[in-house]
């Protein structure tokens, strides 16, 4: 019996030691959530339709080209929506089929009068959407790293097309949001005419009949443009770009000839070849540098340019941001913000203080009551509750579980649960003492009879906590995890630790008939 007791005490001391070692010093070892540390939590939706649209548009272009080249007659090949396109006015079905074989791998074909309608295969579309989200995720990760945020989280979230971004300690939220969302699609296109003061004026110059390969694009937003740049004007530019988003090799901070901020970019080798041919053929014509659908600057092509260029006429901040976004690569699709939660660091500080105060106050109230009501035995409960909190803190630091504001509430509820189990046991021991079979028998009976009740109550609480984990996001998950760990360690402390303490008391008084309870 004594040996058994020593072994139990040893285990308890070891657990306490390990727990304390795991979370001390808490400032370093306990991870704080955004709601306590301050920072921003963002949920983005990737518009995966964009990527499907590119796929369909490319297929349509290619098909139109090859039909024209092969001399197959048709009246129309056009995209209906991001996943569908139609072919109309076919005369020679066999000749068409010979050219359109490629599309069958990606699209389901259905016959129509004089043509076909194509619809993207669902599994292909899903795979494409998935790839798009993965690519967007990787791009955002690179950008967040460039921003220099410590311990950021970039992960898939909720529905298939959502991405969660958490940036602890970021104060300039607007800038972070812009950098993350910017598609960073760099294009170099020929300018047909411009600038015009308004879109209407631009259309009028063409008698409201824009050539099919042209489009009107806005210049840079007002206020930020200076010198020979676009200002708030609009331009009529060619639809085709000489380079694509993934042709970019690098982007660097630089200065233009007037010592103003500029972004210097270089192209990949094959893109540089194409760009060289393109500029050579268009010497003397104006070319626009377009970023995310806005004309950044226009310059006349002076000679053959191969692998590099400059975005000029920007502010210093714009330069810094553009370097980050261009370097991290273009996004495969544009994105929306669905949710934003920002917590300032001072509010987080106040919440930590309030949480600690509430926990200590709760603990103090419980300690006073237990010692007052259960006298010496009350100390058993206090010890087992404190050990429970130590284990909880230790496990949270070791796993690690992020401490959130609702997690603090989880701590306080853990105190409540610890009290509950102890009270359950103590009340039963009291009842058993009344039957006058001696203290040892009463303690044994108390623990034995209550054991299954404790199992039942903990399992039902665990069910609720596990569903909370399923349901919850961020802070609520923190609460659920705290609750789950608290419940599990409570079984250990309320039953094992508390019983060991009873054994310690009884081992000195073998024939005791009463207990201080």
């Amino acid at each position: 019996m004594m040996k058994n007791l020593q072994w139990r005490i040893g285990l308890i001391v070891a657990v306490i030691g390990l727990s304390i070692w795991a979370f001390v010093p808490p400032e370093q070892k306990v991870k704080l959530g955004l709601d306590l540390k301050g920072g921003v939590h963002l949920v983005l939706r990737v518009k995966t339709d964009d990527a499907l649209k590119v796929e369909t548009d490319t297929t349509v272009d290619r098909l139109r080209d090859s039909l024209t080249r092969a001399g197959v007659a048709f009246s129309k090949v056009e995209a209906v929506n991001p996943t569908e396109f139609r072919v109309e006015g076919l005369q020679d079905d066999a000749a068409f089929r010979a050219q359109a074989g490629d599309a069958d791998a990606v699209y389901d074909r259905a016959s129509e009068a004089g043509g076909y309608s194509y619809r993207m295969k669902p599994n292909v579309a899903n795979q494409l959407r998935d790839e798009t989200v993965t690519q967007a995720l990787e791009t955002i990760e690179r950008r967040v790293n460039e921003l220099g945020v410590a311990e950021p989280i970039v992960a898939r979230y909720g529905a298939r097309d959502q991405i969660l971004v958490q940036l602890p300690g970021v104060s300039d939220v607007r800038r972070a949001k812009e950098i993350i969302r910017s598609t960073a699609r760099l294009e170099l296109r020929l300018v047909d005419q411009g600038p015009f003061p308004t879109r209407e004026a631009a259309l009028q110059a063409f008698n409201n009949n824009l050539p099919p390969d042209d489009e009107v694009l806005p210049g840079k937003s007002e206020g930020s443009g200076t010198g020979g740049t676009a200002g708030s004007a609009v331009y009529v530019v060619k639809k085709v770009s000489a380079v694509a988003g993934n042709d970019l090799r690098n982007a660097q901070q630089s200065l233009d000839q007037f010592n103003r901020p500029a972004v210097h970019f270089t192209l990949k080798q094959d893109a540089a070849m194409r760009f060289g041919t393109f500029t050579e053929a268009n010497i003397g014509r104006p070319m626009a540098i377009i970023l995310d659908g806005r004309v950044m600057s226009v310059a006349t092509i002076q000679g053959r340019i191969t692998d590099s260029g400059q975005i000029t006429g920007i502010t210093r901040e714009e330069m810094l941001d553009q370097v980050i976004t261009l370097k991290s690569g273009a996004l495969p699709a544009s994105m929306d913000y669905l949710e934003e939660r920002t917590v300032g660091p001072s509010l987080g500080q106040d919440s930590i203080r309030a949480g600690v105060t509430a926990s200590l106050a709760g603990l103090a109230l419980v300690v006073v009551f237990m010692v007052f009501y259960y006298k010496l035995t009350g100390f058993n409960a206090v010890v087992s509750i404190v050990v429970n909190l130590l284990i909880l803190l230790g496990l949270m630091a070791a796993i690690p579980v992020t401490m959130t504001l609702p997690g603090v509430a989880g701590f306080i509820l853990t105190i409540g649960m610890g009290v509950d189990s102890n009270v359950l046991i103590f009340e039963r021991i009291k009842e058993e003492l009344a039957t006058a079979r001696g203290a040892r028998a009463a303690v044994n009976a108390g623990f034995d009879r209550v054991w299954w009740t404790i199992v039942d109550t903990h399992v039902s609480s665990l069910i609720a906590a596990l569903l909370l984990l399923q349901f919850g996001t961020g802070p609520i998950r923190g609460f659920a995890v705290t609750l789950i760990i608290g419940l599990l360690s409570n079984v250990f402390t309320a039953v094992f630790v508390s019983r060991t303490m009873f054994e310690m008391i009884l081992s000195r008084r073998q024939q005791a008939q009463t207990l201080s309870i």
Partner: protein
Amino acid sequence: MEIFHNANYDFIRWRWHAITLSLVIVLAGFAMMFMRGLPLGIDFSGGTSLVVRFSQPVTLDKVRDAVAPLGGEAVVQQFGDASENRLLIRLPQQEGAEEGTALEQGSQRAEQALKSAGLPSFEVDNREIVGPVIGADLQRRGIYAVLTSLAAITIYIGFRFRFSFGVGAIVATLHDVLVTLAFLMFFKYDISLNVVAAILTITGYSVNDTIVIFDRVRENLRSRRKDPLSQVVNQSVNQTLGRTIITAGTTFLSVLALYLFGGEALRGFAFTMLVGVISGTYSTVFIASAIAIILSQHKGGKPQAAAAPTGEASERPGRKQRRARAS
């Protein structure tokens, strides 16, 4: 020391009064819900919420005037201690707002309006913008979580005890959820993510309480097969009364600490827990066992017959040895 020495109150006699009282509260809650709608916080309804800290004290009315032109029913209230000059400003989801760019507009326009209203300078401490997609998603998941947790607990208790007990426990738990919702309505708390977390915690807590009594009922049924079920239940409620009150009291104390000192951000959570703890204790004593008795009587005809335990087979293995050793 004991709060109740050999307590012997006739709780079962009061069961219809208790059920009536509960129904009145729950129905009043429902009536308010129909009149005013469920007060969903921005977590679920979508919208913008700002916590703004001013450099000097400002009156709520001035701030209300400043954001009034934004339209919608803006809510402006004190956040935390008055000395901190923190205000909470909540703007509803803009009607017909598109996802994406428009999502930030509410907060930007509010900050602009505050800047141009001639108020003291301020800093935004907390900004929450929830789009309708996320709101709807959270609503669905919240309802799903509460319902599945109720169902899972019913199944567990039905499996561990008998079916009528499972129903009794779940009616009591559902009762606590509805009473808590009613009080949230009465005191004009918004239903936020934290409040739903508290409600889920309440389901676990409420069932805890009920299980303790049912465990005792089962134990007593074994030794007192001849007594009517209602008598055994009443005796069990009385035997565990001390524990029920002490546990409720200490949990209440610790949640009260959270309510008083936990700060503004956890106020709704703490309030929900406070109501839930009281309701959970009340329903454990008055509702859960009453329902179990009513169901057993209806099913088994004669109370005695229904009172017989589901048989030794339902007893957990190993228990007899332990009891033998204990005595």
